[in-house]
């Protein structure tokens, strides 16, 4: 009996926090189905009186959202593929090869992680301008090509691959690249999935860099377009909410589907030092 009251209080607290956490998200979804103007009434409506899809149907026409969705999707997919390629090779080499300067280099990379990305943005913009990459998908992807965090993630995981396995493959006459492709990559699948999730979601949600690189309206990614439209459509609450749902939904679905793999990335990152 004495244990029950604290348990009830604690679990009620957890439920309350869950409600507070979910409230803005649920309201966003609910408002996106409301009739025009309904979300701006007082007292606030929590559920639409007559749910309607009209704002979702208006998104392509009034916000050109399909184009922005495609921009975001293409950029996030290619950034993910490139990041997998660059970081898996480097992470594997840092984990399993012995070469001069390896540890110094790796420590240098890790300590460079405190440098805020904003420091690089001004010269990077100038460089990309000279390369003709302003306003291109590639220009947005470039900072995520190789990430120090990605290399770190793969390295930590690849260290657990038994040397004997690699040695055996070498005895069988497999080339280094073949070992990487046929032995290392398949074994690293879980961490590559983690890396893919981090890169995809990070690129999808990224705001400042695409805002800088995409100077032309039609090349905006979803967050940039949304921020831009927020001023213009400030009265169209329901329309903006529909746009926000479309922006948030893909990453939330990805997270819910691959939660375990996503969390592993945080745990690997969390125990570094």
């Amino acid at each position, binding site marked *: 009996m004495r244990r029950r009251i604290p348990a009830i209080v604690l679990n009620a*607290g957890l439920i309350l926090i869950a409600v507070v956490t979910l409230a803005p998200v649920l*309201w966003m979804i609910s408002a996106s189905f409301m009739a025009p103007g309904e979300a701006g009434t007082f007292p606030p409506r929590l559920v639409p009186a007559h749910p309607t899809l009209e704002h979702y149907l208006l998104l392509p026409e009034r916000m050109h959202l399909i184009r922005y969705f495609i921009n975001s999707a293409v950029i996030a997919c290619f950034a993910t593929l490139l990041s997998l390629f660059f970081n898996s090779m480097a992470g594997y080499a840092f984990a399993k090869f012995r070469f001069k300067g390896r540890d110094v280099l790796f420590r240098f990379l890790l300590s460079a992680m405190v440098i805020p990305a*904003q420091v690089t943005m*001004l010269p990077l913009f100038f460089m990309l301008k000279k390369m003709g990459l302003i306003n291109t998908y590639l220009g947005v992807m470039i900072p995520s090509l190789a990430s120090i965090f990605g*290399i770190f993630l793969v390295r930590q995981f690849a260290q657990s691959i038994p040397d004997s396995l690699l040695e055996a493959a070498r005895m069988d006459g497999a080339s280094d690249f073949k070992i990487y492709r046929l032995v290392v990559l398949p074994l690293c699948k879980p961490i590559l999935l983690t890396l893919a999730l981090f890169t995809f979601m990070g690129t999808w949600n990224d*705001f400042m860099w695409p805002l800088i690189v995409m100077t032309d309206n039609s090349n905006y990614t979803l967050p940039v377009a949304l921020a831009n439209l927020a001023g213009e459509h400030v009265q169209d609450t329901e329309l903006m909410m529909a746009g926000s749902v479309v*922006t*948030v939904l893909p990453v939330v679905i990805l997270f819910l589907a691959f939660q375990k793999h996503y969390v592993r990335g945080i745990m690997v990152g969390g125990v570094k030092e």
Partner: protein
Amino acid sequence: MTLRPRYRSGSPAVAYLFIAPALVAIGIFFVVPIVAAFMMSFTDFDIYALGSLTFVRFVALENYLRALDAPLFWQAIRNTFYFVLVGGPLSVAVSLGIALMVNSRLARFKSFFRTIYFLPVVTSLVAVAIVWRYVYHPRAGLLNYVLSFFGVSPVDWLGNPDMAMPAIILLAVWKNFGYNMLIFIAGLQNIQDDLYDAARIDGAGVWKQFLNVTVPMLAPTTVFIVVITVIGYFQLFAEPYVMTQGGPLNSTLSLVMLMYEQGFRWWSMGYAASIAFLLFLIILVFTAIQIFLRRRALV
């Protein structure tokens, strides 16, 4: 040192080949720009320089002096420190509190709650900032509506210079607490049960156990979390950009926002580079202090 075969796995030449693509990319798109930004901060790099570098002039410390002399820069410093020094500890405290609750033996449906609490972390900041702008609406907003049940009269969250930064902090805490919570939970689970058992045998109550077992055992995790939170919070940008455009009365103008506006709106890129480096310097000092405190506490 034990004897190892010389090329245990692959030759060094191959290793360099494997790390080359990533290192070249990091070199060109990260290291070079950092050095370039440093150089840029001592020049009058502007929109003409973007066209041709012949327009660049060396101005020594002029940009830095201009920043230190500009009231707007100090305003951005104050705002950013407000956000970091209030929002950071609040964020960490909320994460720790909720982690303790979720990790408690009495909690039910732990993984369900964990998932829900983590959800804001994966959402797009811009999208949720837009949602929160409506939540903060003085008349029709959800927050004022809820507060009205507690007798609080309507607050103009984003329109009042005194309330705008607290509003942004609240959004940031909501958006980020799940991340640190997960790391705290992992840290808590690493504490061995027998430490608590020993404390209990010594007659320590729940609070004493927390102070004498949880706090010291969790110190490394906490330092890590504080460091990443502080680094992240110093880079405040999207929240004010979307919700307040730095207003009202520049009360939410952050350093990164100032850098963005100077660099990419007015194309004073040399000046913006000096702001970026001052920010970097501040982050470096803060990180060093935290790591130093941790070392001293442990030795």
